[in-house]
């Protein structure tokens, strides 16, 4: 609805003025600084839905929309974990997804980063303690960057990923 109510000229104007809309957050963690140096403007990610309500998926999808267009920062989603610099994990890790998540991470070449997107990924959110939930992402695999919000808005996600991409 966001897009449909917008007129094309507005869209183009917004797109042209975009870079200033998204502030570049400071890269506090040394792992993030290292990743930024390593990735040099190209960050390929594999997305794993570990049990999300799909709210975070909508926001991740929208960062690649023409409005936010994360690809101009060198951030891309890839199909195979063999070709990526890190994982983008959403949702609380359900019991059925714990092993596939570990296997996916095992398939990623090193060095790599794990980004936990959304409150559920950070601390299970409203699903904490549910019978099918194994735990937060950090309980299952080591996490490098956490993005808070339920769901986090696209600008926040892009900010965090830009920190990793070094752009």
């Amino acid at each position, binding site marked *: 609805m966001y897009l449909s109510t917008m007129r094309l000229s507005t869209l183009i104007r917004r797109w042209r003025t975009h870079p200033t809309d998204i502030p570049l957050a400071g890269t506090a963690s040394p792992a993030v600084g290292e990743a930024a140096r390593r990735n040099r403007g190209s960050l390929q990610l594999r997305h*794993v839905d570990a049990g999300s309500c799909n709210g975070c998926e909508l926001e991740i999808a929208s960062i690649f929309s023409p409005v936010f267009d994360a690809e101009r920062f060198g951030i891309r989603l890839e199909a195979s*974990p*063999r070709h990526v610099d890190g994982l983008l994990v959403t949702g609380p890790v359900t019991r059925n997804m714990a*092993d*596939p998540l570990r*296997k996916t991470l095992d*398939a990623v070449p090193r060095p790599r980063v794990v980004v936990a997107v959304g409150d559920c990924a950070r601390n299970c959110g409203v699903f904490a303690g549910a019978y099918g939930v194994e735990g937060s992402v950090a309980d299952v695999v080591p996490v490098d960057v956490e993005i808070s919000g339920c769901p986090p808005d696209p600008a926040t996600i892009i900010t965090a990923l830009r920190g990793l991409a070094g752009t």
Partner: protein
Amino acid sequence: MSARPRNDHHCAAGSRRHVTSLLLIATALVGLAASAVGALVTQRLRIQLVSVLTIAACSGGLAVAIEVLRSGRSVVVHTHLLLPLVGFSLDLDRFGALFVAVSAGVAICAMVFRLGYHGHGLSSRTASCVLPLFVTTLLLVPAASSVTTFLFLWELMAIASLLLVLADHRHRSEVAVAAVWYAVMTQAGAAALLVGLVLLSTHAGSQSFSAIADHSAHLPAWVRSTVFVLAVIGFGSKAGMVPLHVWLPRAHPEAPGPVSALMSAAMVNLGVYGIVRLGDGLLGGGPTWWWLMVMALGALSALYGSLHSATSTDLKRLLAYSTTDNVGLMLLGVGASGLFASTGHPALALAALAAALLHMVFHAVFKGSLFLSAGSLQQATGIRDLDRLGGLLGRMPVTGTLFMVGALTIAALPPLCGFVSEWLLLQAMLHGLPSLDPSLAIALPLGVGVLALTGGLTALTFVKAVGIGLLGRARSEPVALAGEVPRSMWIGAGIPAALCLVFGVAPLLVIPAVVEAARTVTASRLPNPFVGGWQVGLSGIHGVLAPGLLAAALTVAVTLVAGIRRALQRSALRSTEAWGCGRELQTARMEYTATSFGEPLSRVFEDVLSPSHDLDISHVAESRYYVEAATFHTSLEDAFERHGFRPAAAALAWWGGLARRVPNGSVHRYLAFGLIALVVVLVVLG
């Protein structure tokens, strides 16, 4: 029994020839003794005694052959003890000696291998008796110098090999089916040969090969052509030439390991021997269409064989089809040679024939190594199906490496010997291209194309055989438990594998002998047509190859690449599970299989290969949206078998069924037949 030299110019040379003649006789006798030992001795001693005696016989044969190849003086033996009235005559010249040397070499390796090989009924009394007999006939057929001797030995060889194919018939029913196919095809071929050779000897007025060769130029053209066509049919069926190959992919896989090596690396060569001996030797060359026919059949065999071997999933069937493919390449060379000769390019003719013979020698080397190591794999796992093998290089490192050497050689990669012979074959055909003769201008480019396509398909085939069979993970229980085979089997398969490398680096160990053999059979007066030193090439063609330098350059390049890779590698290698989208259950059955590897190709060549698929899905009773079980069956039948030989066999069976109704047991009917016959005879005579 007399062992007489043909012309005694030198006393020393004469006595030496007596020695070689006696050695040839001794070879035959030791071979027969081994056969007798196999029939008489108890099972415990049988394997060792028979193998050692056969190896002794083969060593004798190899020594005679090498002496003949070296000195050029043929060995003549004539005896009346065997074959009353006509006598039994052998005359081993350089051309025959080349084949004897190859057969003897293959047989030595196979018999060493046999020491460790058990099972498949090869230890039975019959098989132990027949195996040395088969080897002996392999050694003697190229020496036969009269029609009766040749046919006698040829038949003996066919029957001995048939009995060996049947060795395991008690345990597997497919063996009997394969043996019936082999028996029918080989006997049909032998019948064609019999008619052809009898026709030839009646018209030439003698049954000795040398007399036939002297007279053949004066024979009527139809006799010469009929004899040649019949010979191509007869020898072609033995060589596994398409469309007479249908027995080969059945019989070679079902035979025990050493026997399939002997058949594939030594026996099929004799088909090529026959075509060359008859076409170039006895008939002294012929019109262009003979050789265009040989080239066409060779090209067909090469393409069809390589296509089928690229899509086969049975390891030994794959190797058998690749034998058809390589026989096709030899025939392509032989045909090109005849074509050059008939259009007045004798130097090119000699080069092409030498290239074809060189390919024959090298094919025996690499196919020997491949079939013997495939025999080891089969003995260790009990499985020939590539879809159930896998991961054997780790479990059987020696055998796996030997197989891999053979595979690299057959894929014609330098610095192994397959590269040299295919290179020379290609050169011989390429250098005929500027010729203005229309038959050459059409046949040679097509031949070059066939050679190129075949080379690609062969590489694909052996990427599949090694990649699916030896690499990856074990796809079935017996393969996972497999262990190395006895050391004698390593040695048996290792000698040819080592020779692949030796002959690849130093092909000049073989090329002079091969060229001399080609000169002998064509009675060529041309100077020795090979470029010596460290370069390989045949005069008449311009390209030269330096295999030693090539090997050195490759070694340097491989070392460099490996060194650079090691230097650039930043972190230690980490091995993880193959990426399967994170699914929980991931088994070796989900690996890429030989069927899937060949699938794109069988789809592209669907019209030729006509693969049949059968998918059967049964649904749960409550809802047809749920599948209860699904079975998938795919098979690749030989098109010539399905559309040619099966209908022919059915028609024959129908005809036989009709004939069986005639003698129905009624005495009245038989009396009526007698009366009718009497009337007919009276009418005819009156």
